[in-house]
């Protein structure tokens, strides 16, 4: 039974505590003597601070302390950028925890109040007098590059944070000799991740020992410890970071922010526990955003449908400061994916990372890969239309043929395994593609505008080999570790370095152990999120927890199995070579009646009464797994929409997702990841948009104005899969966390354009809200 637990849709063990309100999130923590911090944030996108007067605030009821940048300067180091892309003329502008002389975005921290209650802290913010001298602001990344644009940092002339290029093949020759060239200008609008749990921190300082405990909403507690020790000066061994229940992240809980380190500073200064929890309004202005590209793109090809080259210029908004991983997103995670799943012989992209007077941009679900997929899929539909071919036919003609152990593309990446046409075939069969095209033709005759959008994608996941991380400037490793510990009773504790925050690895990782060792899945407890208890890990992002952490776990379990085999051989008076194993039982080959169970072995190893000579007591193993390559999940998605041109309303009628993440540990959880991912991508296509006015005010600063998908505007997603194992992963698994988001935005976009082409609409701004659709239809009618 347990061997088949791998692949079973068992219920999640995380759920009972979350369903009963007994899981502990950071804001649920209360400590004796705890006080509350609230941040005063800049209302200006760009201004000089001419005066701060905190006198009145300091005497407000309940106020314990008020701090400004003058207090923290020299104590808290600036927040470091942790992805220093080489050969890009990178200019890392100083990112102070509290702004001192100049504020650079609406949301920059200017002062902090600590009070007996959160209400009192927020009250006292009103009593801080700050005089600002406003400066001109710039919010659009392409405009930031223009001559005469307001300068965000003196240290980054022309607002350029970096200029990175990727090239493969002879792209100039490809365009010179092209039979067809299609061009587009794409605005990847800025998005706000909007994890349901706002960010929070609780800091507790023990002056007598020098120990500091920081509870923090993070996807990567070990990185918080590492960076936190640099910023706060608390030595890494004395800094304990606990990420308790974390309510979603989607990339916004990767970076380190002022809030947690201000809590640490205040706790040390006041010698009292300090809690800081952002409001949703703060989350919108001061927790990182995603995307924000302006792209000028073109594709070269032949009249019979072969893509011969892709060329792009990208202005990627970085916001006012470089968030921890930000420079790697439009470059390594975007530019290197410019071939997608296609045989494109020549590519070239220039990426300009631009400082703007906006909230810093970071990873947001998919991080770079949705932008690459969208660029390609939008161009391919345009190309197909230009040569009068069905977009599916063009995709099929250019897909990399199935491969099982490596395929190198023009950007230099070596994909691990893929069967892209297989996924496409399955998606088309599910949706009934040819029948839909007939239905579309019939509906058009009735004046109804149905559209079918198709996309095929591949993503780079399972970040990644540490050697590659170092070569591309990532300021850390990207391996993972796991410890597996058998107790005398045969129960198991697993300690992992990654940090699940909704993805269910307490369940799936127990399934890995159970299937490898034959123990009951309920006998395995997975522990994560506490740097004092768990081994080092680099965090949960980039669909890497199962792809890298799961591999570390599998390797640790296999070490246990080797030791258990040797111990069983000793107890059965046989040689190791003669041993066999099945379903948690060790026995001599050909003599399955006499067995030692894994529980027998665990007991003996722990009491150690009868061990082979030289074998250590205990049944415990750890593993550090550094993957030899990335993993490359892929798939094909199809959307069917109907658009009402007179109102601009889009009805999403069907959505089919075929994703291949290799063997699935728990298909129920995989399906849930696809649902959520697809819906976030649909959100970008149809509703979500962070809007700044020209002065840098965020106009979509609450859930009233920033429209994340609601239950009543979505169809059921039809989720299917194919299974192509990764050749280098011990379990063959890839990753599924981001797939849906990577594929769905362009799929829905292509469907809407497909619907509106007869009306002469061949491009729309995202999100494709009714107003935008209506205007495009009107413009096309006038133009016709």
């Amino acid at each position, binding site marked *: 039974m347990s061997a088949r637990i791998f692949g079973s849709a068992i219920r999640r063990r995380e759920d009972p505590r979350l369903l*009963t309100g007994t899981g502990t999130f950071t804001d649920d923590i209360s400590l004796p003597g705890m006080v509350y911090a609230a941040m005063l944030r800049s209302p200006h996108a760009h201004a000089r601070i001419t005066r701060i007067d905190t006198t009145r605030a300091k005497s407000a009821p309940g106020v314990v302390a008020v701090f400004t940048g003058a207090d923290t300067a020299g104590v808290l180091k600036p927040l470091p950028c942790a992805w220093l892309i080489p050969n890009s003329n990178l200019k890392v502008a100083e990112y102070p925890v509290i702004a001192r002389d100049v504020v650079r975005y609406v949301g920059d921290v200017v002062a902090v109040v600590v009070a007996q209650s959160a209400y009192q802290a927020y009250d006292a913010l009103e009593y801080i007098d700050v005089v600002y001298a406003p400066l001109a602001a710039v919010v659009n990344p392409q405009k930031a590059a223009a001559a005469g644009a307001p300068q965000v940092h003196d240290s980054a002339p022309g607002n350029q944070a970096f200029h990175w290029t990727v090239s493969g093949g002879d792209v100039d020759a490809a365009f010179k000799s092209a039979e067809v060239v299609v061009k587009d200008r794409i605005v990847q609008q800025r998005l706000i991740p909007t994890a349901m749990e706002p960010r929070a921190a609780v800091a507790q300082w023990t002056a007598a020992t020098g120990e500091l405990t920081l509870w923090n909403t993070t996807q990567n507690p070990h990185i918080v410890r590492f960076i936190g020790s640099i910023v706060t000066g608390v030595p890494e061994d004395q800094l304990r970071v606990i990420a308790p229940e974390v309510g979603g992240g989607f990339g916004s809980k990767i970076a380190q922010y002022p809030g947690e380190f201000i809590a640490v500073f205040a706790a040390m200064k006041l010698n009292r526990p300090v809690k800081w929890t952002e409001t949703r309004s703060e989350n919108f202005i001061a927790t990182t955003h995603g995307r924000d590209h302006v792209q000028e793109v073109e594709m070269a090809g032949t009249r019979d449908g072969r893509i011969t080259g892709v060329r792009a210029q990208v202005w990627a908004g970085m916001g006012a400061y470089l968030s921890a991983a930000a420079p790697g997103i439009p470059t390594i995670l975007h530019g290197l994916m410019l071939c997608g799943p296609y045989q494109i012989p020549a590519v070239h992209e220039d990426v300009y990372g631009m400082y703007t007077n906006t909230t810093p941009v970071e990873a947001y679900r998919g991080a770079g890969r949705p932008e690459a997929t969208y660029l390609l899929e939008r161009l391919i539909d345009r190309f197909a239309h230009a040569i009068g071919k069905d977009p599916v036919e063009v995709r099929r003609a250019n897909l990399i043929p199935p491969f099982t152990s490596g395929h190198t593309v023009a950007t230099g990446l070596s994909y691990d395994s893929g069967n892209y046409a297989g996924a496409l075939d399955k998606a088309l069969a599910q949706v009934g593609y040819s029948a839909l095209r007939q239905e579309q033709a019939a509906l058009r005759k009735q004046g109804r505008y149905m559209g079918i959008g198709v996309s095929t994608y591949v993503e780079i996941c399972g970040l990644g080999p540490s050697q590659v991380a170092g070569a591309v400037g990532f300021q850390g490793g990207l391996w993972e570790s796991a410890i597996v510990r058998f107790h005398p009773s045969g129960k198991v504790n697993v300690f992992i370095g990654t940090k699940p925050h909704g993805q269910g690895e307490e369940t799936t990782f127990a399934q890995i152990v159970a299937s490898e060792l034959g123990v009951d899945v309920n006998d395995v407890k997975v522990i994560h999120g506490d740097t004092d208890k768990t081994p080092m890990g680099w965090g949960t992002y980039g669909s890497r927890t199962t792809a890298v952490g799961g591999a570390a776990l599998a390797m640790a379990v296999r070490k246990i199995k080797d030791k258990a085999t040797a111990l069983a051989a000793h107890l059965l008076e046989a040689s190791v070579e003669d041993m066999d194993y099945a379903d948690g039982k060790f026995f001599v080959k050909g003599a399955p009646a006499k067995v030692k169970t894994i529980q027998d072995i665990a007991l003996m190893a722990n009491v150690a009464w009868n061990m082979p000579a030289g074998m250590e007591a205990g049944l415990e193993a750890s593993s550090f797994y550094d993957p030899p390559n990335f993993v490359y999940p892929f798939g094909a998605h199809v959307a069917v929409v109907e658009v009402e041109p007179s109102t601009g309303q889009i009805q999403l009628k069907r959505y089919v997702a075929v994703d291949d993440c290799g063997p699935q540990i728990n298909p129920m959880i995989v399906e849930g990841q696809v649902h959520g*991912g697809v819906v976030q991508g649909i959100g970008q296509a149809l509703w979500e948009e962070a809007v700044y006015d020209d002065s840098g005010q965020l106009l979509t600063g609450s859930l009233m104005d920033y429209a994340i998908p609601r239950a009543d505007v979505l169809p059921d997603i039809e989720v299917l899969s194919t299974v192509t194992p990764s050749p280098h992963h011990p379990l063959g698994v890839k990753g599924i966390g981001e797939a849906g988001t990577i594929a769905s935005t362009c799929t829905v976009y292509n469907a809407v354009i497909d619907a509106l082409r007869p009306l002469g609409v061949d491009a729309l701004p995202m999100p494709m809200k009714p107003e935008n659709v209506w205007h495009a239809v009107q413009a096309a009618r006038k133009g016709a």
Partner: protein
Amino acid sequence: MTVSVSVTVNGQRYQDEIEPRLLLVHYLRDRLGLTGTKIACDTSQCGSCTVLVDGVAAKSCTCLAVQADGTSVTTIEGLAAPGTLHPIQEAFWDKHGLQCGFCTPGMVFATHELLRQNPNPSPEDIRHGLEGNLCRCTGYQNIVRAVQTAAAAMGGR
């Protein structure tokens, strides 16, 4: 200035002196330590703080604690006896209706209200009934399944 309130929460009667401006959600979380009720926005949009007030779902961030004076409030901690699950909770577990779990307590009470008003909702009814509660993880699909399962388990009660 403080005022006196008397509220029964999860069957336990509480008498407290509170600031008139104190929100019910803060009273529950900070004063009574019932942190299962979550706060995910400040504009009454997300529904994470939904509880039952006299059996009817209410967003506790949009309600002053003094308005709950004399009422009986049920939070997620009190929906089922310790160690047991209400059929709605059980259905969310069965159908993978939660991922990070932060919106879940509110979603469970929104479901409770939906089923109170319409014991046998269609998928469309469910999607409309839950549009006041935001979830960023699930795409809602498994939540719809969970509500259908709960409705069946509760047999139209």
